[in-house]
């Protein structure tokens, strides 16, 4: 009996080792990762006529989950897929004095497959365009509280003038015009060349052909700290439907000194051709990082962004405390102003306290 047990053990062990060796050869290097975050905040808004509070999902870095997988196909060639979706209840850029609760929606961010090798990376599917994020490079450590996407917080709030709503929202007066964001596209990324990278993409967004090119840089300057920047160009082929193409040009740069002092600048221009005036956005941020804390002041200006002759500006203060690598606790205060034809609207003031937890 004992012999039989020993024999069975040996036979099973040997067989399993042989089978698993074969399976290992097939599955070696495959990695599947599930990650995500929840980002919730309490926001208070005062538009000069009314004030109220809102429970929001911070659209600067929304609640989302991500499933990704990579596997080597052969030596020097890796295949992968990314599937990322956001699920926001009361997105901070959608609530307003008229709409305090917005039903949550399940929205795609990435549904992307890619091949990567020493020659670079080719991606196909829903994902970032080549220039996406080119106006948002920021090393301040306060981005979850404030960044160049100034309308991510309170973008849907309308300005009042003479006690009446103007129909002009914060997003109409100022936004960073960060190219074409995410869409269905074919994209190529070069390998990193001394900190530089170049990307091109072509695809369709809202039934319109879109083409983009982006240049990025990120380097460690030793005693001078760290520097990152991006430049981009996008072309929206709207000439068939609207009579002219829409082109966006812009970039951003951020410098973080070893002392913690940091500066961030961003600028973009959207050329509507014969469709309207050129929309211009300018942004600046001064910050300081110390330990697990970061604080910053920012300022932004928008000209003819969505409506010719309507301009906007904003100024704000942001603070982020990262008590753990997976947690950010933040607070921000900012004020938006708008002006049209020499007439100022009432300012809108926002205050927000929230937390982002990566799980």
């Amino acid at each position, binding site marked *: 009996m*004992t*012999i039989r047990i*020993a*024999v069975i*053990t040996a036979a*099973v*062990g*040997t067989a*399993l*080792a042989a*089978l*698993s*060796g074969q*399976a*290992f050869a*097939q*599955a070696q*290097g*495959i*990695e*599947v*990762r*599930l*990650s995500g*975050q929840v980002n919730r905040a309490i926001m208070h808004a005062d538009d000069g006529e009314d004030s109220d509070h809102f429970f929001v999902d911070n659209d600067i*870095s929304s609640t989302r989950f*991500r499933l990704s997988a990579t596997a080597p196909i052969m030596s020097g060639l890796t295949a992968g897929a990314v599937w990322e979706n956001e699920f926001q209840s009361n997105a901070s850029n959608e609530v307003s004095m008229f709409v305090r609760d917005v039903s949550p929606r399940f929205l795609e961010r990435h549904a992307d497959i890619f091949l990567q090798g020493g020659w670079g990376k080719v991606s196909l599917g829903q994902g970032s365009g080549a220039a996406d*994020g080119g106006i948002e490079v920021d090393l301040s450590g306060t*981005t*979850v509280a404030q*960044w160049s996407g100034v309308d991510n917080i309170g973008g849907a709030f309308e300005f009042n003038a003479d006690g009446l709503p103007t129909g002009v929202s914060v997003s109409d007066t100022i936004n960073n015009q960060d190219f074409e964001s995410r869409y269905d596209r074919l994209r190529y990324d070069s390998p990193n060349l*001394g*900190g*530089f990278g170049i990307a091109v993409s072509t695809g369709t967004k809202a039934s319109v052909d879109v083409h983009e090119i982006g240049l990025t*840089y*990120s*380097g*460690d*300057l*030793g005693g001078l700290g*760290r*520097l*990152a920047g*991006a*430049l981009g160009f996008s072309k929206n082929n709207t000439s068939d439907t609207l009579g002219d193409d829409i082109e966006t040009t*812009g*970039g*951003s*740069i951020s*410098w973080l000194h070893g002392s913690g002092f940091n500066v961030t*600048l961003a*600028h973009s221009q959207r050329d509507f051709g014969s469709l309207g005036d050129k929309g211009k956005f300018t942004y600046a941020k001064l910050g300081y990082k110390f330990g697990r804390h970061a604080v910053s002041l920012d300022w932004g200006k928008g000209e003819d962004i969505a409506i010719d002759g309507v301009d906007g500006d904003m100024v704000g203060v942001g603070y982020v405390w990262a008590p*753990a*690598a*997976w947690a*950010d606790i933040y607070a921000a205060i900012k004020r938006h102003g708008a002006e049209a034809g020499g007439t100022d609207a009432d300012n809108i003031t926002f205050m927000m306290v929230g937390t*982002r*937890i*990566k*799980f």
Partner: protein
Amino acid sequence: MKAFGLLALAAALGGCGAAPVDYHPAGEIKQGPGLFTGSDGAFVLRPGQAKPAAASSDAEEFERWKRSAEGSAEYREFQDWREWREWKRQNAK
């Protein structure tokens, strides 16, 4: 256009002696550990590593038994059986 000039200048300066580092887009999910996922920062499944680990535990268990049982009556019985099986293989009809 000022931003472009500044970027070009800074990049040129940086290119002189800077070491390239990865930049993680600010609005994306943070890099690093997660609340539930620990240092990996994600629930990670590596099929190519899970199976050999389970299989090797059986093989290792057999090896451990061989080492620990060596010299015992049970082990001698096992060796007798292996010798008989070898004799039978060589003297097959």
